[in-house]
């Protein structure tokens, strides 16, 4: 039984002033299942649609088409949720400094969502609860931070409070969009570890969006790789990291700067000034292994091994 089921999800943004002349396909037919309690990673470079996916799944933006089922009931079609479902889906963003109303003290920013969602009976209890979470997250003394304004805290501190704010609402599903990519390396751990601790304790399911394959490999149970709005590979984190199949995933792996094992770089084709994407595979213009079939048609996503799906003609030749 899946917690979240996504079928053929599409999101097009249209541009052009009067006539909708062209549209950007941010998400183009994405389907997957998220199992309760898992951390589901979404990997891709800028423009692959991963942020859009987070916004659509957290119901902050409407999809163009497709179906989203959450806990057995349909989410897609409208952004109006009943308060209970609304509480169950929360989101954390990349920029901690933008995640807080600059005019509110930390305490107000944390209390307001709890009041709206009727967490605890009164503010005293709520404050008690907030202090508990803050203490667990390493804020010492916790009440000293509640009276501060966001600009008085560091990025790492704000991002931890951002996680606490989301988790105080006891969500079943949490979208974490690049939640450490703006932070310094040495403070990333405190944020990721807090997230992992809390979601494990509360059995929260997480959609972990990142561009960093090594981080995703570290944190996630399943990983989905997106390229220009299309799913190109989906498997367990272990398989994606150890034996990636899709050329794009392999290229991504080989180019991730790492101080550990130096990997053989896979040369990719260079993109020209105007590289048009036709009806073929989205990765074909850069793919080092492409052949005629790739130019003609986008390959479907096929499960070629148990729990390992790839959209690539290399594996569908027969």
């Amino acid at each position, binding site marked *: 039984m899946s917690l979240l089921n996504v079928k053929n999800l599409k999101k097009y943004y249209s541009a052009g002033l009067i006539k909708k002349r062209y549209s950007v396909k941010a998400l183009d037919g994405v389907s997957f299942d998220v199992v309760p309690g898992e951390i589901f990673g979404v990997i891709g470079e800028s423009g692959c649609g991963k942020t859009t996916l987070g916004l659509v799944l957290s119901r902050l933006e409407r999809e163009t088409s497709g179906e989203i089922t959450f806990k057995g009931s349909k989410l897609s079609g409208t952004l109006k949720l009943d308060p209970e479902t609304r509480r169950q889906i*929360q989101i954390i*963003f990349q920029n901690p400094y*933008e995640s807080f*109303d600059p*005019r509110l003290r930390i305490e107000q920013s944390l209390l307001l969502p709890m009041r709206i969602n009727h967490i605890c009976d009164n503010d005293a209890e709520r404050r008690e609860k907030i202090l508990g979470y803050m203490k667990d997250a390493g804020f010492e003394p916790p009440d000293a931070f509640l009276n501060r304004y966001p*600009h*008085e805290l560091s990025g790492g501190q704000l991002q931890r409070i951002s996680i606490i704010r989301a988790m105080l609402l006891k969500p079943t599903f949490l979208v974490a969009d690049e939640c450490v990519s703006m932070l310094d390396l040495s403070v990333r751990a405190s944020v990721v570890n807090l997230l992992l601790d809390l979601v494990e304790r509360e059995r929260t399911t997480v959609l972990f969006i990142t561009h960093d394959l090594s981080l995703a490999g570290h944190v996630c149970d399943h990983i989905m790789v997106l390229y220009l709005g299309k799913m190109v590979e989906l498997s367990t984190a272990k398989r994606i990291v150890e034996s990636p199949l899709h050329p794009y995933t392999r290229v991504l792996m080989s180019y991730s700067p790492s101080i550990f094992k130096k990997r053989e770089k896979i040369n990719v084709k260079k993109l020209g000034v105007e590289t048009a994407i036709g009806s073929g595979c989205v990765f074909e213009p850069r793919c080092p292994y492409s052949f005629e079939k790739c130019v003609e048609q986008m390959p479907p996503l096929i499960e070629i091994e148990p729990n390992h799906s790839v959209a690539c003609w290399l594996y569908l030749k027969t």
Partner: protein
Amino acid sequence: MRFRTDFAKRYLSSRYGLAGLIMFLTMLIMALFAPVIAPYKPTDISHDMLSPPSKVHPFGTDHLGRDVFSRVVHGARVSLTVGFVAAGLSALIGIVIGALSGYIGGVFDEVISKIIDSFLMFPVFFLILIIVAVFGRNLVYIMLVIGLTTWPSNARIMRAQTMSIKEKAFVKIARANGESPTRIIFTHIIPNGMYPVVANSAMQIGGAILTEAALSFLGLGDPSVVSWGKMINDARSYMSFAWWSIVFPGIFTVITVVTFSFIGDGLQQALYPKLSEVRNE
């Protein structure tokens, strides 16, 4: 709160802002303590008609023997009231409509934007003129009409502010937390986005004072109050030989308008420090 003290510091570091504030405070004291400051009642008639400035009448007297200085001092009350009420109303309407339009978006936003644009192209003064002519020469009407016709510039500023703030992560998180649109608009968007509207409103206060003066000058002012515009209107026929009766209210009108324009400048500088000190980063 650091934000506020920084704001005050930046405001006061602007020469215009500081000058405007001092001028405004002087004027405010003049208006509040008008009965104490003015040597005569503004409506007291005497036999000493159209007499030039002297020790007894520092600004001279008008054609009915009323003390021009006392009338100017009392006129400050009317001018400031008109300015603040009209601009305040304009800011209030502008902020609410602009925020709603920017936040809701879609067809609603397009309709509001079209209304704003047409208002901005329309010669508003003539509209005010017609309304006052039809509905009567009452100070309350005049303030209401000025407020009701000048909000579009505020709405446009607030709409732009709203569009940028609503894309910020904290607004998206507020939506995910289940905050209602009304709550988001009134607790997050308006308090964070209204400062540029406030700066614009300071300039609008000057504009409203000028509009009231213009209406009074054309004989459409409230007959029951003492206002600078009305004094200028009254003095028209005598200005060739009694300059004081027209020059003093005129000077005060100009000073007031300049004061609020200075304050607006100061606020602009406090809001957008980058504009004035580009190299200082």
